[in-house]
């Protein structure tokens, strides 16, 4: 590979982020990965970092032990190498600079990644998620909603998918007229249908209303949405932006719906901040939690000042508002922000997940992401910095959505089929560019890139290792007793998601994982059930009728399992650290189901 000047450097020191520990190893640079292999043969840990995961590389000033290289990853991993010779360091540095800035889509890992599947398997992978089937599941098309072919050629809106669902009373001229009155042509379309009350969740972008402009077709469009629901005389229009932002947009000829022009709408601002605020917020959060020897005061003050949890709560509040309007009042809701692909995606997706237990299953969650994020044109390429980026377009919008879901799993441990490792793994791959799903900014672009022919689908990959992502205490019957989730929105119930933002900082994790332990028990139960069956069959051959469970004397169930002690020095309790040499510690359990295991 032409960009790699030095493929291998030996005697590289890897410093631990939060303690004074370090290990020596060899650094390898390949076309797709940066790999560190520890020299110590007994533990020999390996770190594989995909170039696409690298957010920034920094070369610090030379020290006596060598040249430090600081690598920050999008999955919140931070590695600090010290390379003995400055020349090597510079070579690695400049190679990485080039490698982590691919100039064309063809350079992305997805186009070279080959999991050794044939074309048929690849195709099957892409067919796993079928959005037409999903709308059918919701009960659409129906007597009030129909599929329109107006966007078949991406002519009305190039950031929308081809297949769109609109009220039957919305004629083509109305649709086209409405789309001309909306930012980027993103006119109101159906994203979720709550069959029980025939209430619809629709999404769009802001109207080009300026200070006084109006559009009869757009007004008709909203009227048509309203009319399609006989349960409610009004629809809610949720502008997910803070009012100030919406006001400011009016000066640019954009803005929000004037209640006087639209009959029977209830207009509501919900105040989620824009992508720039969110980017800054995450930046601040990471700075705080990346501090060494962080005091509790600095942590809590930093958490507050970053505003991160405040934003998470704002998104959750908006989704709860949406779910209540639909399920309690039976009203249809139209959601928008500015362009209708960030905050709108967050609120629609999270709101649907609160209303519909299907989206809390593994398959359903994939469908939800495919629908509200991928097909409706959340700009993954820009937001996740996939290709020659504009730093002002990068923003953790999707990460926030995943975090909101995690906050819900904490409040409702039995409601979700998946555990947090599923969320973390999805996050990992949104940035890895290893699979085709999240490449590009819109469906249209994906078709041009021929992703279905040239890359693999993440969903097939995740389903193949489903075992790792199961929530052992998931209860399908929970969905029956709680079809709609009603989370608490008290501030104290929102927590810092350690396993996401410190996924790679082992010293911070619990040393034993309840999740892993219970999963093991569950797995063992399945095996034992099989064994019981097999034994019964054998016994029947002896002509013995077998007894039901639970009548035998208890027997020993001791199974040897390694236990973990972790280390005192690693944790840095103060004073003594450094004054005495650190010793070898018992190995710490690996909690990371979520680590992306990449194939070269």
């Amino acid at each position: 590979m032409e960009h790699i000047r030095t493929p291998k450097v030996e005697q590289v020191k890897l410093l631990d982020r939060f303690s004074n520990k370090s290990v020596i190893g060899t650094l390898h640079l390949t076309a797709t990965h940066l790999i560190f292999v520890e020299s110590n043969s007994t533990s020999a840990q390996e770190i594989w970092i995909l170039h696409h995961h690298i957010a920034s590389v920094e070369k610090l000033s030379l020290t006596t032990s060598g040249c430090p290289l600081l690598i920050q990853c999008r999955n919140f991993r931070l590695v600090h190498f010290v390379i003995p010779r400055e020349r090597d360091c510079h070579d690695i540095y400049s190679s990485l600079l080039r490698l982590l800035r691919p100039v064309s889509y063809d350079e992305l890992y997805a186009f070279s990644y080959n999991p050794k599947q044939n074309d048929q398997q690849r195709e099957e992978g892409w067919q796993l998620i079928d959005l037409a089937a999903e709308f059918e599941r919701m009960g659409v098309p129906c007597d009030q909603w129909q599929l329109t072919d107006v966007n078949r050629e991406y002519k009305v809106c190039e950031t929308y998918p081809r297949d769109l669902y609109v009220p039957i009373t919305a004629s083509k001229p109305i649709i086209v007229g409405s789309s001309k009155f909306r930012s980027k042509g993103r006119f109101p379309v159906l994203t979720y249908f709550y069959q029980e009350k025939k209430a619809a969740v629709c999404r769009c972008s802001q109207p080009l209303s300026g200070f006084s402009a109006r559009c009869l077709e757009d007004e008709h469009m909203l009227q048509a949405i309203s009319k399609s629901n006989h349960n409610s005389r009004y629809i809610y229009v949720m502008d997910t932006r803070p009012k100030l932002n919406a006001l400011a947009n009016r000066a640019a000829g954009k803005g929000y719906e004037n209640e006087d022009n639209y009959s029977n709408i209830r207009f509501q601002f919900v105040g989620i901040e824009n992508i720039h605020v969110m980017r800054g917020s995450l930046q601040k959060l990471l700075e705080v939690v990346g501090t060494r020897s962080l005091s509790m005061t600095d942590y809590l003050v930093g958490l507050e000042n970053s505003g991160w949890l405040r934003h998470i709560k704002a998104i959750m509040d908006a989704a709860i508002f949406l779910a209540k309007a639909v399920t309690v009042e039976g009203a249809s809701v139209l959601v928008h922000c500015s362009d209708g692909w960030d905050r709108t995606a967050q609120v629609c997706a999270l709101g649907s997940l609160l209303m519909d237990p299907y989206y809390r299953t593994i398959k359903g969650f994939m469908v939800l992401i495919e629908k509200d994020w991928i097909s409706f044109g959340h700009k993954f390429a820009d937001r996740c910095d996939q290709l020659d980026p504009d730093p002002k377009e990068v923003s953790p919008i999707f990460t926030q959505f995943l975090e909101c879901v995690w906050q819900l799993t904490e409040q409702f441990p039995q409601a979700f089929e998946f555990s947090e490792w599923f969320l973390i793994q999805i996050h990992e791959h949104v940035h890895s560019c290893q699979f085709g799903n999240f490449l590009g900014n819109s469906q249209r672009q994906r078709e041009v890139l021929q992703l279905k022919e040239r890359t693999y689908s993440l969903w097939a990959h995740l389903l193949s290792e489903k075992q790792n992502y199961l929530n052992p205490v998931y209860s399908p019957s929970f969905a029956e007793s709680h079809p709609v989730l009603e989370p608490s929105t008290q501030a104290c119930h929102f927590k810092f998601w350690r396993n996401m933002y410190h996924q790679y900082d082992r010293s911070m994790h619990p040393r034993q994982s309840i999740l892993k332990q219970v999963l093991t028990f569950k797995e063992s139960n399945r095996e034992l059930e099989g064994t019981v069956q097999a034994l019964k069959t054998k016994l029947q051959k002896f002509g013995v009728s077998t007894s039901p469970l639970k009548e035998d004397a208890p027997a020993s169930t001791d199974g040897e399992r390694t236990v973990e002690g972790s280390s005192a020095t690693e944790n840095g309790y103060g004073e003594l650290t450094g004054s005495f040499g650190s010793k070898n510690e018992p190995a710490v359990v690996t909690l990371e189901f979520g680590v992306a295991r990449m194939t070269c």
Partner: protein
Amino acid sequence: MEFAELIKTPRVDGVVLHRPFMPTVEGTLCLTGHHLILSSRQDNTEELWLLHANIDSIEKRFVGSLGTIIVKCKDLRVIQLDIPGMEECLNIASSIEALSTLDSVSLMYPFFYRPLFEVIEDGWQLFVPEEAFKDLESMTDEWRLSEVNKDFSVCPSYPSLLTVPKDIDDESLCKAASFRHGGRFPVLSYYHKKNGMVMMRAAQPLTGTNGRRCKEDEKLINATLCAGKRGYIIDTRTIAVAQQAKARGGGFEQEANYPQWRRIHKAIERSNVLQESLIKLVESCNDQSHSMDRWLSKLEASNWQSNVKEILTTACLAAQCIDREGASVLVHGTEGTDSTLQVTSLAQIILDPSCRTIRGFEALIEREWLQAGHPFQQRCAQSAYSNGKPRSEAPVFLLFLDCVWQILRQFPCSFQFNENFLIMLFEHTYASQFSTFLGNSVAERVKLLLSQKTVSLWSWVNRPQELERFLNPLYEPNNLVIWPSVAPQSLQLWEGVFLRWNRSTKCLDEAYQEMVHIIEYNKELQNKVNSLRRQLAQLETEDSPLQTP
């Protein structure tokens, strides 16, 4: 005194009880000498039995002739009683106030409580110092059990039997006692079997401003060092606070007089500061405002989590000195009855696997808190809702439990008990039918004749029927030292105590039950497999396939 004198209105009908996340109950309110009882007099409806001792403070409100009493409990629960009739309401309120603030220990409920269960294993006999010493003797012969304090005259807050270095006679102990605050001379707290290192605890030395020294004290603690070895003195106060203590006759060990010891100062807050911290924390947890910024800044301002982190860090440091550096440790603060005990008891949980079992943890509480003279009665007289000026109340033990919970969170499979066990202990330190946490020292408990007149908490807890609730289904004995992370990101607010009453725990409880079910089912299946295998093996050896058993 008769309780009847304090009860102005023993009974009111038509009272409505409101509890968070529970349906309201209408019924009859009764006041007895020790309980507030609300009964709907219908079957299947839960009755409320509240110990007066559990009531921290009350508030009255009136709307017309309907009175409302808000009852704030020491376990942090807040309930509301709507009482028809202004006079009844006032009477009830003043009766509750009088009954919940009784000063005399002998009027406390444990002296009136008669157990409805048969005491099989008397908790008073479970953890006697002689037994603990037998264990020690099996490991080392360097120590002896001294009776120097048998009438509690050398140190009123110590028990009658103390473990001290074999070579130090009682006379030296008395001299060392006179050099330590409250007579609390250095005694053995923990012996680390793995390397023979020890942890001792004491109160501050009385060096005063002119640097007094005491040869016997120096000899006493040096006797615990192996030849050529150095030890660590962990002073739980900052150096500034320790300096200030000199002016009041206290102080710290001077390097010159204790050359074999390295002194480390930490910053665990004193008890009055901790009480303030608890009040602020509970206030922020009960804040109904939904603002994130407000919550985080109030949580921070309470300093509670900082206190947890500091105590845990100090305990880890002590454990690190012993296990990693192979050095002996002496821990003290000022009186040696609060922060000192937090550190010594937590260090043992980190180091000693037996402290992570139910019995072992009970023994630890007996040894390091009850017999070591933590003034429970003073510290737990009031909790977070008290209106009055705090006297000597402080959540010292609650902070210890919080730290244990933090370690339990990080090592969820290494403890025989679960979170409920810790919460139960918290409740019983503040109000209980058992007398284990009455009194401030062994001497006081002996004087009160507790073991003759009252029932020990352990007599109740250790019954298999009760224990079941407290067992951790994930427990697997772990013989290693367990080092918790003390990074702020790894420490959490103890929701089970502080958010217990302002959220519905139904979903969390059901998830826990499901986990228990999975594990129990596993045991069942294991048994089934074993029995089927035995059956099969038998048939195969009999080699008579047609015969039925």
